[in-house]
């Protein structure tokens, strides 16, 4: 069972397909869960503490906006754990954790420079594309075993 990071990191379709095919999908909600359910959280109404942007400094410079560093404090450790990646380019709608274009560029760059197997795809727009989409993901994941 390989640890597979998916991009967009909040994708329901990709995380489901990875889990359905017997691998572990590395996704942002898991990182968020660790943060929000921890009883020692410093600022209860928020899920980010002042420490998070500091953790993000490992991935982005100090002059990079804190929003990027904050997101990287969640996504960065996931990238470090990843053994493979599935990237779906330009879905045209990304919100929340995945809604920052600069963070997304950095995430894709870090995944690609990590040297792990990467599958590049686009979201399907018709049934034939969907079948190819599912088939490519299955072949890619089977190749990781």
């Amino acid at each position, binding site marked *: 069972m390989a640890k597979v990071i998916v991009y*967009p990191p*909040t*994708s*329901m*379709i990709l*995380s*489901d*397909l990875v*889990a*359905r095919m017997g691998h572990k*999908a590395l*996704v*942002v*909600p*898991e*990182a*968020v*869960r660790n*943060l*929000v*359910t921890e009883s020692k959280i410093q600022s*209860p*109404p*928020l*899920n980010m503490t002042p420490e998070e942007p500091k953790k993000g400094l490992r991935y982005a410079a100090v002059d990079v906006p804190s929003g990027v560093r904050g997101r990287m404090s969640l996504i960065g450790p996931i990238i470090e754990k990843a053994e493979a990646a599935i990237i779906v380019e330009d*879905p045209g*709608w*990304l*919100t*929340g954790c*995945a809604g920052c274009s600069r963070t997304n560029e950095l995430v894709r760059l870090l995944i690609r420079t990590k040297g792990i197997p990467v599958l590049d795809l686009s*979201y*399907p727009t*018709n*049934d*034939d*594309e*969907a*079948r*190819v*989409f*599912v*088939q490519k993901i*299955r072949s890619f994941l089977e190749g990781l075993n």
Partner: protein
Amino acid sequence: MLVTKYVITSPESNILPSDIAMKIYGSKHDVTVKETCMGVTINGEEEVIDELVKEIRSLDPAGIFIKDRGFPPGDPRRCRGRRGGGARPGFYMIESESKILPMISRALAAEGEGIVPSLPEKKRPLPPARLEEIVKEGLS
């Protein structure tokens, strides 16, 4: 460790969120269930949820999708009842992907047939060298 997962049904699935909720109520598992417009949210111990997810998937293997959620169900930091209404921040992503779910469901159901359609090659941008030639031809 307590985990939360979304169980989302494809818009074309014959399974309703209430069917999933009834299945969970009828199971022996000790979990929290919350029905939503697109499926249900379940919260419980990781091992229990993993086992339950397998049972739920069996209702419609190609039409039920599972997604991790960070916040527990009804968490005041995310519950719209406490935030003055409006959709929960993560809803927009689910809403956008839900539009593709019927296609993915059909693709998963058709996987057993073993036929993968060949797609026409996508148009590529004009190579700069060819553009240069066209410009030269146009100017000569």
